[in-house]
């Protein structure tokens, strides 16, 4: 009974050769881990670059829009001033004419 138990212990603790391709599997797993870590970093960098590009493009578009809006506004203002100038001068001349006729 005791001999059986000792045999079992000896068998369990005895040196065993690893299964075939064990080393290759361990190395492959390590490589996989390294690749996954690298992929994570690459993903992080790509996201950071994409976010920066988005911010830069968005800011540039906003600035461009502001510049375009400002130019359109200034042009509209100049046209309005011109229209008011023509109208005011004409109304003043008409007033002058009416005054002249009345006198």
């Amino acid at each position, binding site marked *: 009974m005791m001999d059986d138990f000792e045999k079992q212990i000896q068998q369990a603790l005895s040196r065993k050769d690893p299964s075939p391709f064990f080393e290759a599997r361990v190395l492959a797993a390590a490589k996989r881990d390294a690749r996954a870590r690298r992929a994570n970093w690459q993903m992080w960098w790509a996201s950071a670059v994409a976010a920066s590009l988005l911010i830069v493009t968005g800011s540039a578009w906003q600035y461009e829009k502001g510049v375009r809006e400002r130019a359109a506004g200034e042009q*509209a203002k100049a046209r309005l001033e011109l229209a008011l100038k023509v109208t*005011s001068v004409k109304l003043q001349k008409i007033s002058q004419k009416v005054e002249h006729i009345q006198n």
Partner: protein
Amino acid sequence: MKYAIPVLFLALPLAAQEIKMPPGLDKLAAKASEVVDVSLDGALLQLASRFLSDKDPDEAHVKQLVGGLKGVYVKSFEFDEANQYSQTEIDEFRAQFRPPLWSRIVGARSKKNGENSEVYLKTENNQITGLAVIAAEAKELTIVNIVGFIRPEDLRDLGGHMGIPKIDVGGAKKGHDKKDKEDDK
């Protein structure tokens, strides 16, 4: 009575119709030595208004004036020679100012030099909602259509401000009485 409702439906779009610039006016640009053609609808007026300063008293005044406007349309032509435009364009424009909405507040005509000046006002619910000016001279034609709440004296009094020349009217009255004079001298 049975025709009243269809007539009313026909009349409603006509009453709401905007004043149109005669298309023939565009051809005058080719003959004119100087052309001013300004077309500002409500959206452009709002945009222009945003660029008028509240701090500058002149610009603030114009901003207030423009606040009630829905459209400003001005066409002005100066010619080197006389009689470059036909009366048809003016008649076409004038024909749109029909009572009861529109009334002529000034009509001054000079047979001597062929000048013709007219000012029309559109009134709705006792409020001025439109202004039109026809100023026809031998070598100059100006047509103005302003849509929205406006007082002619406000525009006239812009003279001397914002680079607009002030013409000595010779003690012209501030208020506008109905004037319709013809100078046949």
